């Protein structure tokens, strides 16, 4: 069966510090991968998605970037965190075949980020 991991679970960082959140998927190959952010009391906002290694699409221009160095690894980064980067970050995967649109997305446990 497939599993998705995210770490760290919780992170408190000062403004201006760098960020690296990691997401890995097990039990599948060539997944589509996604990063979402959920602000307090709000829905999910898609940040990035990837249909393959090195292929990243950005949905919202911002202080964050994403990379996919391996097939089942997705990393969310920032060089300098802002207060507004605080939130709950969710990674998700869906079955994908060479960029073909897929459907159901399965989510990781999430990372709570607090920028002070």
């Amino acid at each position, binding site marked *: 069966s497939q599993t998705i991991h995210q770490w760290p679970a919780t992170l408190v960082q000062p403004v201006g510090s760098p960020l690296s959140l990691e997401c890995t998927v097990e039990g599948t190959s060539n997944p*589509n991968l996604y990063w979402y952010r959920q602000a307090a009391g709000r*829905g999910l*906002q898609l940040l990035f998605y990837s249909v393959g290694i090195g292929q990243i699409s950005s949905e919202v221009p911002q202080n964050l970037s994403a990379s996919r160095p391996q097939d089942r690894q997705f990393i969310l980064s920032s060089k300098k965190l802002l207060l507004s980067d605080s939130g709950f970050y969710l990674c998700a995967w869906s079955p994908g075949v060479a960029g073909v649109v897929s*459907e159901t997305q399965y989510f990781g446990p*999430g990372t709570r980020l607090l920028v002070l």
Partner: protein
Amino acid sequence: AQTVTQSQPEMSVQEAETVTLSCTYDTSESNYYLFWYKQPPSRQMILVIRQEAYKQQNATENRFSVNFQKAAKSFSLKISDSQLGDTAMYFCAFGGYALNFGKGTSLLVTP
């Protein structure tokens, strides 16, 4: 632009009763998918049910069923025999590559 609207920020239902959560969406596409996700206090997003737009038959999953009205762009979730464990935020989502989420409905199941 594709939008998803959940008009009920909060709802409450008694245990064993039935509750319906509303969702409407806007799109010009003809082929897409619709989802309901549940987010309990742990904040893990859990898939509840999925509907393919090309299927006329409404999806069901145990106590959960949907009423999909494609022409009206409506996708409501019915929870039958509500249980205390159903207490959670429920998000309606629409899309293909990337999901567009509504703002959620907070459901409280009371004894």
